[in-house]
Structures are given as structure tokens and as C-alpha cells.
């Protein structure tokens, strides 16, 4: 009897669903008009991303707004993954900004990185819970784009920071530094630390599809076309998924497979730390140099003992602060997110105005290079 009852109940549910679908007033979906079919975009994973110049021509005489925010409601921060010191530092800045601009920040992200689609449920949950804004650092540019677009359609402000998605899927992208500049910096650091700027180098990156890392790697490849880098040979690019164990294994494999390796370039704080640990434990200081993007506190010891002679980064706390301020500005309506708009965020950038550039992008500022001479001061000032 209960078997029939459960079938009956499910049948009713089915009818209800179908009825609700059919009772919609919308007509049958229309067939798309005969526009030319969109051409497929085939992107190699190492995708050259054209980074816009920060400032657009200031021909529009719009007022420069000083952001005050004053918002309420939840702002959900969705980094690539949790437990990452880099994103934790960003979150410190976000929380600082929340005390100034209002709103309630919270973090929600996959436990580990590397999966391009893992952020989607978090974006959808934030949308369902009617968050005012989401701050997303994309593990993959295209996979999350439909979910971001759906969030925008529901009135959620979408601010990308650190790693971007597709244009059109977000309101504003807060880039930490000029992409071409970061790439050039990576190439320069490899040149500085390889003997006479000559030798084999390898790249230990994060997720295979990570937008920002791939953009920097592409920019680095572009810079290395310069004849002064002609002596450097890139022999391998491997991916550690921003997971410590995977990154360590990849670093060990690199050293084992390439006995003449001179430099490991790692454009991710997890990877550069793992590579430095491996080089130190294998007693290869001075034979294999580690450079890349790393956080000052964690890399301080390795910079001082020569494992990682040069490491680059930006003020991640400020990056989080700026991203939150921009989100608050969008929610409060102080800025609309259109190209050419100018605004000031007090305490960031020395009070100088930001201008929204092409592809709705703003740039935090210049990167900082840490080395033996300045790391002590930086580690003190930047507690991450």
C-alpha cells in the first residue's frame, strides 16, 4: 500500500511541476534568428589576456567621487580556495574595509583549488541568499561566467579581484598590478638570479586554468622575446593547483627531471613556498634559485638565506580593501561601474583617484619587489 502511496505522491509532485511549467504565460521559446553562428573560441590554457592600460582618456568631465559606502547586507567573498595565506591576507583587508564602508562580509570557497567549476555552487548560494555583492577570485574565467551572469541578473553586484572572469560577467575587475608589468618582473627576476642571465628555467604555477597565473605566464613569455633574455630557456611548466602537497611533489619532479635547472619561477604564493622548501631541503641553495610571487612573512627566511633571492608581490591587504570599497560603492550607487568613471578610496593609493579602464578594470598599483635588503621592513609592515 505504501508503495502505491509513494508512487502516487511522486506522481502528484510530477504533475504539479509540469503544470507549473506549462501554466507560465510565456510563449514557446523562440528559435534564434538567423544571425551568423558565434564562432567557437578555442583558447589554449596559457591564454594571452590583453590587459588594458589603467587610465582611460579623462574626456568625460564626471565628478570624482570619494567612496563612502554606508551599505548594509551581506557581501560574500569567494576566493579560489580556503586555507590560502594570500587570500587570508586579502580577507583581512576586506574586513578592515567593512568597518569603514558597512556591510557584513563572509567567506565561502572550495576547500582546495584546481577544480574550475567548484566555485559555482558558492556563487549560486550567495545569489539565492540575496547577497548584496560578491567578491570573486576566479579559478577559471569561463566556467563560472554563466553563474556570475545569473547573479548579476538577480541584482547582485559582481566584483572580481585577483583573478578575472569573462568581460560581461562582472561589474568591475580589481586587478592587483599591470599584467604585462608582472610578467616582465617575473622574467627580470629569473634573469637576475640565473648565472649571467643564462640557463634552464621552469614554471611552477597554480591551477591549470587560473586566469591570472596564465595571463602572467603569457606576459612573461612575451617579455622573454626581448634579446636580453635570450640566454634563458623555459623547459617545463607544471601545475601545483595551489595545494601544498601537489606543489611540493611538482617541484621535486622538476629538479629530478632537469638536473641543469637554474631557476624555478612560481607565480603563486603556495608554489613559491613549496619550491623554496624543496630547494632548501635538498641543499641546492645557490644552484637552483626560486623566484616568483610570494608573501613577505612566509618567504622572509628563504629570502634571507638565499633560497629565494627575489620575490615580488603587492599589498594584498590593500587589494582586498579596495575590492570591498568598490563593491560598497556599487551597492550604494556611488559608482555605476562604467568605463571612465573616477573615484577615490581614502587611505589607498595615497588618495589619488582611480579611473575605470577598458573591460571595467582598475589597477591597485605597482608591485613590490622583496629582497635581502628590504624584506625585514616589509615583513614588519605587511603581516602576511
Amino acid at each position, binding site marked *: *500500500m*505504501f*508503495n502505491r*502511496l*509513494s*508512487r502516487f*505522491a*511522486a506522481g502528484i509532485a*510530477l504533475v504539479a*511541476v*509540469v503544470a*507549473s*511549467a506549462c501554466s*507560465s*504565460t*510565456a510563449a514557446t*521559446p523562440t*528559435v*534564434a534568428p538567423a544571425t551568423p*553562428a*558565434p*564562432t*567557437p*573560441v*578555442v*583558447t*589554449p*590554457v*596559457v591564454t594571452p589576456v590583453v590587459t588594458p592600460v589603467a587610465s582611460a582618456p579623462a574626456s568625460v568631465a564626471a565628478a570624482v567621487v570619494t567612496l563612502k559606502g554606508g551599505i548594509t547586507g551581506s557581501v560574500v567573498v569567494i576566493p579560489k580556495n580556503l586555507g590560502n595565506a594570500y587570500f587570508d591576507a586579502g580577507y583581512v583587508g576586506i574586513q578592515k574595509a567593512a568597518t569603514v564602508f558597512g556591510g557584513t562580509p563572509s567567506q*565561502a570557497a572550495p*576547500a582546495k583549488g584546481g*577544480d*574550475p*567549476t567548484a566555485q*559555482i*555552487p*558558492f556563487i*549560486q*548560494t550567495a*545569489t*539565492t*541568499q*540575496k547577497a548584496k555583492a560578491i567578491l570573486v577570485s576566479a579559478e*577559471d574565467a*569561463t*566556467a563560472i*561566467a*554563466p553563474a556570475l551572469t*545569473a547573479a548579476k541578473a*538577480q541584482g547582485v553586484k559582481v566584483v572580481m579581484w585577483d583573478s578575472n572572469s569573462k568581460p560581461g560577467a562582472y561589474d568591475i575587475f580589481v586587478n592587483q598590478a599591470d599584467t604585462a608589468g608582472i610578467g616582465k618582473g617575473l622574467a627580470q627576476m629569473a634573469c637576475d638570479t640565473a648565472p649571467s642571465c643564462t640557463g634552464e628555467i621552469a614554471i611552477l604555477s597554480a591551477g*591549470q*586554468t587560473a586566469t591570472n597565473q596564465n595571463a602572467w605566464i603569457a606576459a612573461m613569455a612575451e617579455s622573454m622575446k626581448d634579446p636580453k633574455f635570450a640566454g634563458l630557456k623555459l623547459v617545463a611548466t607544471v601545475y601545483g593547483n595551489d595545494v601544498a602537497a601537489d606543489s611540493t611533489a611538482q617541484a621535486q619532479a622538476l629538479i629530478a627531471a632537469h638536473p641543469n635547472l637554474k631557476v624555478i619561477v612560481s607565480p603563486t604564493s603556495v608554489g613559491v613556498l613549496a619550491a623554496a622548501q624543496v630547494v632548501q631541503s635538498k641543499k641546492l641553495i645557490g644552484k637552483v634559485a626560486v623566484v616568483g610571487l610570494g608573501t613577505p612573512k612566509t618567504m622572509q627566511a628563504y629570502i634571507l638565506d638565499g633560497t629565494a633571492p627575489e620575490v615580488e608581490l603587492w599589498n594584498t591587504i590593500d587589494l582586498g580593501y579596495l575590492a570591498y570599497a568598490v563593491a560598497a560603492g556599487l551597492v550604494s550607487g556611488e559608482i555605476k561601474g562604467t568605463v571612465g568613471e573616477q573615484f577615490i578610496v581614502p587611505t589607498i593609493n595615497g588618495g589619488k583617484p582611480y579611473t575605470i579602464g577598458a573591460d571595467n578594470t582598475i589597477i591597485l598599483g605597482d608591485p613590490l619587489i622583496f629582497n635581502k635588503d628590504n624584506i625585514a621592513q616589509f615583513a614588519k609592515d605587511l603581516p602576511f
Partner: protein
Amino acid sequence: MTLDTKGGGQDHAGSATTNSPIAALAPLVRWESLLLIILVATILIGNWASGDFLTGLNFSNSINNAMEVAIMALAMTPIIITGDIDLSVQSMVGLSGAVMGVLWGGLTPLGYVPLPLAIAVALLVGVIGGLFNGVLVTRWGLPALVVTLGTLALYHGLAQVLLGTNVVTNFPAGYTDFAFKNIPGTFVPWTFPTFLILAVIFYAVLHRTWLGRQIFAIGKNKSAARYSGVRVGSMRTALFVVAGLIAAIAGVILALRFDSVRSSNGANMTLTVVTLAVLGGVDINGGKGTIMGVVLAVLTLAAVQSVLRLVGVSAYIEAAVGFLLIFSVTAPLVARRSRDLVNRVRLGGQSPSAGQAARNVAPSRGGGV
């Protein structure tokens, strides 16, 4: 090991105590009823835990995310009922997407293939993959577990070879809208009625036709089925072909939903698919299972995942899936043992299990060939 309390839609070894009042209650304790109770309880808990649970948006997201594994679970059910398994479905998801992507994306010497044709070829690849599985399992007699473990790796490797490090994106809006959006004016995603239609077809074939009876017969006793005139080999192969085709469909939908073709599409899906089937009451040893149970399992799993996400403990989702899997295997065993215990008390000493065991000694399972 017979798990009698799982509804099989088939007659099973009746309880040894047909006169006991407990026996009268037995039909109530069917697996689907329990699943329905769990589903309703999850919905109530979800509504209590979060005001956003019973919203159209949440329904749309939660269901849409589950539809690929859902249709694969439908196709997995008859395979498990016949006593086989297909672990390669997750790799076929990736491979079919890869085939569609490289054809449409112009990565082959054939140039830019129109998308409908690329999809058709992807589905054909699913059929061929399923056929390959089926032939190895039936013609060559290799264990399905081992064969499909091998094709799990093989198909994934093929996808990686086809795509390299490329990612194909920017599919036409009409196609991605089908995979991602709702029916206009409602909160029901397009993929949901697709799943329901497939569920009705599988239900009709499995529970209402002679084909379905053959499938159950193969699961209960292969030799007996063969002597009864069932074409066991052809049937098992056909089921693998169907699973391959459905996995290919799921792969196409997945690629469109993410608007990107990657060789890693479909990773880790096999676990969820098998969990859905087992949670739905399909006996992993074969011979029992219902489509209704699998549909309820899909809804239950989607609801549980949604509640965990809304409450903010999505890190526990994998643990929850594992728990549901273990629960669905042990609960019937516990229920049967406790029923036996109660019956033993009532009958005063004579162990019904002894009678049961005597019946189980006979070669046929489930009472009667």
C-alpha cells in the same frame, strides 16, 4: 545476501512469518517509503534552517546541478540490476564533450563542424564506447568492474589526447541556455523535464515490459535466465550501450552548462552516480531496484546538498554522500535483522532465519526461478 526490505517491484523471498502482525507491516517498510520520508524531512529541515531553501532560485540551481548525474543514474540502474557495473561513465562525459568541442572548435583536420553534427558524433562516440564495454564484458567474459575501470582511464586519456591543453568555449546561446536556464516564466530548469521524461521511459521499460523482466531475471540468476530463453549477452551489451549514450548526452549537457569543454569535465561523477543508484534502493548484487527509488534518491541528494550549502557547511557534502551510501546499504540489513529478532521472540524460539537460510541454499535467489 538478500535484502528483502528493498522494494524490488518483484516478488522476493517473503518473510518467513506470513501470519505475524509484523508481516502485515512489511509492505510499509519499503525502501521508497523510507526515502520519501527522508526527502520530506530534509525539505522541512532545510526550510527551518534557511529561509532561502524553498525558493524557486534554489530549486532551479540545486536541481540543475544534479541533472547530469541523475540521468546517468537512470542508465546505471539496469546495469547494476543485471549484476554488472559501469565505472567509465564519468570519463565518457569528458570524452563526448571533448569530441563535440574539437569538432565544433575546428581542432581537427575536418575544420569547423556545425554544432548539431558535432553533438551527433559525440553521442555516437558514447554508443561506441558503451559497445566496447559491453563486448569486453559479455563476449570475452571479463568482469565488468575491471573492464570499466580500464575504460575509465582509457576514455579520459582519449579526451586529453583530443583536447591537449585547449579549452573550447563560447557555445551559441541557444544551446547553453538549454543546459543552464529555466523554462521561461518558471523556476524549472530545462534539464529537469528532460530527466523526468527519461525517467518515465526507463520506468516503463524496466517495470512494465518484457525487456524489464528479462533484466531482473538476468540479475537474479544468469544461468536460469539463459535457459529460459533470455539473450543474456545481447541484453547486457545493450545496457552498456545505453549507459554510454546517456553518459554522452550528460557530457554534452555538462559542457554546455559550463560553456567550456575540458578533458576534466565529469571528474568524480561515477561515485555520485553509483551512490544515487544504491541510495535509490538498487541492490548492488543485482536483481532488485526501482526507477522510482532512483528518482527519489536524486531529489534527496539534491536537497541534502542544498541544505548543507545554505547553512554554510558545504565541506561536509562529501561526508554526507558517503554516509548516505553506507546508510542505504546497512539500513535494510539492520531492519531485516531486527525484524527477525522480533519474529523470533514472537514465535518463541524457532528461528525464522533458519527457514530463510534453508531456502537460500537452493541455487535460485529470491524464491522461484
